[in-house]
């Protein structure tokens, strides 16, 4: 692109405005501002329209469906008010799957944050081949869920899996890893395998910790653990908070139980062992195996509201604990 090109375009634009609207307005400043305002909405409109059509509309549609018996086939569906909601509250499967999802979230999120932070501290030390370690530890985090699911399914296969092979060396009988009650531990391991994600993000945070703070702590004779606890963790707390929130949301939505199950199709949710039968799997079963769109939409909305509440609570209870570095200069 050359300067000449810019000016031709500029001229064309000028002509357009001159001939187009409000010639000789006399108030160029206002029109400049109006132009900026219009331009802002012109630029942000793809996202605004997309958000309305592809997020808000489906959510409202789901809310409407949740008050009906709609199943996609029967033409005789009708409005039933809150019946779907009272049914789901009375269904023990709802509560059991919700409990499992909660348990999964409160174990997998803290464990993967601890693992990721631990790895970050390890590979932040002066090491030979540090870049190589970082890359290799991060690599699993870019593996698509399908790849991870298949790999773990094969590692934990009852007959020919590596896990039982290791147990065999120690004379322990083969375990049915992918069945109850062990399936939940395999699921947890798939999450921890991706801890490189949190490692990379924490690493960027560690880099922002002002050097003087560490030096001052060392001079004061603080131990490494003390320095970590009192300097590193507070300064990383915004990152950790963000990871907690996104981690909880991700763990509620995980489809990994489906991918670890014997026949993984959306209709195969019935093959998922009980201990991995999460709330989302229950939704899938109602949606696809049974085609109860109305009831499944009610389940979705309950989950959505619960996520909002939990996220709100996390932000609320951490507001006094999370430390935001208000002085950007201090980072340098």
């Amino acid at each position, binding site marked *: 692109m050359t300067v000449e090109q810019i000016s031709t*375009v*500029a001229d064309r634009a000028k002509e357009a405005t001159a001939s187009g609207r409000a010639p000789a307005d006399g108030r160029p400043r206002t029109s400049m501002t109006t132009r900026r305002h219009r331009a802002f909405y012109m630029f942000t409109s793809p996202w605004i329209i997309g958000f309305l059509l*592809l997020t808000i509309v489906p959510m409202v549609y789901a809310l409407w469906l949740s008050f009906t018996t709609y199943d996609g086939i029967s033409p005789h569906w009708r409005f039933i008010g809150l019946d779907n909601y009272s049914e789901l509250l009375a269904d023990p499967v709802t509560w059991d799957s919700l409990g499992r999802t909660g348990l999964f979230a409160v174990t997998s999120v803290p464990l993967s944050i601890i693992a990721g932070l631990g790895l970050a501290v*390890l590979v932040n030390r002066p090491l030979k081949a540090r870049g190589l370690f970082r890359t290799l530890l991060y690599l699993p985090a870019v593996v698509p869920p399908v790849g991870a699911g298949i790999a773990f399914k094969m590692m934990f296969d009852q007959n020919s899996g590596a896990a039982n092979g290791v147990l065999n060396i120690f004379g322990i009988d083969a375990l049915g890893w992918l069945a109850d009650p062990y399936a939940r531990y395999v699921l947890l391991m798939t999450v921890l395998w991706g801890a490189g994600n949190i490692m990379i993000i924490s690493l960027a945070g560690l880099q922002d910790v002002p050097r003087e703070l560490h030096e001052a702590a060392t001079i004061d004779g603080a131990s490494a653990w003390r320095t970590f606890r009192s300097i590193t963790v507070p300064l990383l707390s915004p990152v950790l908070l963000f990871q907690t929130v996104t981690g909880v949301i991700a763990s509620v939505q995980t489809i990994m139980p489906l991918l670890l199950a014997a026949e993984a199709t959306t209709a195969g949710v019935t093959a998922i062992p009980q201990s991995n039968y999460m709330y989302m799997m229950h939704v899938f079963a109602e949606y696809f195996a049974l085609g109860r769109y109305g009831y499944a939409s009610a389940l979705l909305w309950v989950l959505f509201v619960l996520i909002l509440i939990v996220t709100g609570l996390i932000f609320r209870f951490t507001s006094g604990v999370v430390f935001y570095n208000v002085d950007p200069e201090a980072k340098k």
Partner: protein
Amino acid sequence: MTVTSSNVTSVSRTSTGGGRSAGSPPRVRLRTGRLVLYTVLVVITGLFLGPFGWLFLTGLKTSAETAAAPVHWLPTDFQWHNFADAFNLIDFLGYARNSLIIAFIYATLVTLSSAWVGYGFARLDAPGKKTLFGVLLGSMMLPQMITLLPTYLIFAKLGMVDTYWPWVLWGLAAAPYLVFLFRQFFAGLPRELEEAAIVDGCGYATIFWRIFLPQSWPVLSASFVIAFTWTWGDYIAPQLLLSTERSTLAVAVMSTYVTTAGTPVTNLQAAASVMYVVPILLIFLVAQRGFVAGMSTSGLK
């Protein structure tokens, strides 16, 4: 915004170096400490690479070996032909092509639309901008799996099931995460860039297209790579929206490696998974810097 590893190096070197000399322990302790550190790291890295190795080894075994108990650690003969067989048992190339088309459509559109929206948030303002930006950030946390199911019903009603239109629409709608990435980048560019053009009477679209976009190659490529890997890795959307023939490699690798009787062909599925995962690993290794920089920006703010 970018994460320079050299920066990390200098920080940690000074701090640990200072710590060691303050306690003035003999060199022996220092050396055992390092030995422990390396051992721990090597063991953890080994565990992290285990699933890759196992997938690869399984892909080289005979089907008898993949069913044998106790485990056959290594295949007696490396069955390299498994990779060719995995290619031929299903229309591997056809599925790969579908994956490529969808990923390419989505990544291209979403990168351009996100840059466009990101420019608006970075360089322009209007009443309501703060609220909109708040909504944008909040929408990053919306559980996508929840919106996907009703969206699927709507797409079905509009006759868009078994077409690639959903990815076109998702692409045009911009992705909040990528919008944020572009906003951060554009906000950091100097004011003078557009001032002269504004004085000349250039429209904002021209300024964006002619001045800002050519400046943003690093972010454009990072965004493309991120969006591409999302789509390549996505399982649930193609599974819901596409019939088996038009579906992606992710769906095919997951569910089509079965005999007519319905038993999984483990060794070929493993080989296919390797061929499905390796391109993503290669893309990551090539585009590593932009990828990591993008991740860290979104994680920190």
